[in-house]
């Protein structure tokens, strides 16, 4: 069931995103699958887990091998796709010079600020909308309209209002992250098993305790699915914003390196962003698992 929801969410992500974003989204899906199979193997013997890890990393090793070999063999142009060793060397240089850290930090702070703000505001709002049916009925058309409006399409509006500085980027990330959290929270509250509500009501619980003791815990897994989606969004859309107009950040680094024809630097930026995305997702996945152990997978 959890996976189904994630699937539905990914569809939303695909719809919101532009072509580029959609591609990155599917990468994220691959990350999810790895996480799930990892969980399953944890229960089995250590040996099997080790075998699995080897098989999982085998694909990565193969990819890296091809990345190294193909440019060297001249199958692909090594000017546009330098061998991985060259890219990693560039990555190391960027790290040592402190420039990578600087860009990394800029991106991380922006995405965390927008993401955090979205959690703090969208979860309570979603609970409110999900719980009060009239409010939900009233707002549904507007929510449908906004969720189907790509956040990326609104970036020029944010820049117009908040300028090219930090504010517009944080607001942009906040906006993009709010939707999956808000919509999942609403549906989490609205789809609580009616029998559980009946059961709690039969035990004499009033509306407030009913909400606190039944609706909220029942909705937590669905809310977390939204939070995880938002975590992925936060990096995707920020990257886009940084490519459009910024003086720092990984998006800026990638774009700037490409414009200046420092191709290995560009790949160094790309590698960093994909590692960051992976890390974010794994972290949120672990958190989600911790908060919804009771959910039957």
């Amino acid at each position: 069931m959890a996976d189904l929801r994630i699937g539905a969410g990914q569809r939303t992500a695909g719809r919101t995103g532009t072509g580029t974003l959609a591609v990155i989204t599917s990468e994220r899906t691959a990350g999810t699958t790895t996480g799930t199979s990892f969980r399953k193997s944890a229960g089995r013997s250590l040996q099997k887990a080790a075998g699995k890890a080897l098989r999982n990393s085998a694909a990565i090793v193969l990819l890296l091998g091809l990345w190294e070999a193909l440019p060297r063999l001249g199958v692909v142009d090594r000017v546009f796709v330098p061998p991985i060793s060259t890219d990693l060397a560039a990555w190391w240089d960027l790290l040592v010079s402190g420039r990578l850290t600087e860009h990394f930090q800029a991106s991380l702070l922006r995405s965390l600020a927008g993401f955090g703000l979205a959690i703090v505001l969208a979860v309570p709002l979603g609970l409110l909308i999900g719980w009060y049916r009239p409010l939900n009925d009233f707002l549904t058309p507007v929510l449908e309209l906004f969720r189907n409006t790509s956040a990326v399409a609104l970036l020029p509006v944010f820049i117009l209002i908040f300028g090219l500085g930090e504010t517009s980027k944080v607001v942009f990330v906040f906006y993009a992250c709010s939707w999956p959290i808000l919509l999942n929270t609403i549906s989490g509250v609205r789809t609580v098993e009616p029998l559980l509500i009946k059961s709690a009501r039969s035990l004499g619980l009033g509306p407030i305790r009913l909400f606190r003791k039944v609706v909220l815990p029942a909705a937590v897994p669905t809310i977390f699915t939204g939070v995880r989606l938002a975590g992925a969004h936060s990096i995707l859309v920020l990257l886009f914003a940084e490519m459009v107009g910024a003086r720092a950040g990984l998006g800026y680094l990638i774009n700037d390196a490409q414009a200046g024809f420092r191709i290995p630097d560009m790949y160094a930026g790309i590698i960093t962003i994909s590692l960051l995305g992976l890390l974010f997702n794994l972290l949120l996945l672990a958190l989600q698992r911790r908060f919804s152990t009771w959910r039957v997978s």
Partner: protein
Amino acid sequence: MTITLDSRTATRTKIGIREVSRVFDSPDGGPPFVAMDGVTLDVREGEFLTLVGPSGCGKSTLLEMIAGLTSPSSGEIVIDGTPVTGPGLDRGIVFQQYALFPWRTALSNIEFGLEAKAVPRRERAELARHYLDLVGLSGFEHRHPHELSGGMRQRVAIARSLAFDPDVLLMDEPFAALDAQTRESLQEELLTIWEKTGKTVVFITHGIDEALYLGQRVAVMSSRPGRILTTVETPFDSREGDLRADPTFGEYRHHLWTLLRPETAGPTGSGRLRVVTHDG
């Protein structure tokens, strides 16, 4: 085990169901759906009443109305003479589908009703453990519902409704999902608890045997729209020995079977059995 049904003589009405009808609006705007029509039934204080009837005749609906979860479309339900206006901790309901909270462990599911009753934490845990033990699940305190079998879940649900000690126990086919052996032992357990506590029990079942074995009285409902066809007093004074092998048991079973046959529309003749119709 000897259970003497001495409360049969008690006549005080615990639950009074007066001319209760329940109509559901049809979702497609068609004519309203009459699920139950003019049900009248008195459940005596301390009585163990079983309720049988064809599927869809409104047994669960009736139980939910007694619990105060839904209201009758017309008519009235009174408990101790006071009309039911909503749910309360004087009534405990065990649902047809085990309605456990999946994020809570077996133990804390049982504690749920005690929390609602504001029982202190320590006492809560103690009581919950006692009832978990009673339904034969000690050792499973910290399992979540999805880690329990269907029968175990149902036992947790039963323990939960027993734990907060309601006067009235409303049970909707609680043993339907259990294997024969577990069912029998829980039936005995339930009778023991009932005998000890003097609770009033309304017990829905599909099983004629179960209805006869457990009930002091069996109320038979007709198919849609649900009505009370008759109530049948069971003649057994104790549950000692293999009651089901008693020839009288067989006669009663056959009688109930005849009543529940689809062809049998109205109240049928009683033959040589003592049949008490609700309005007679």
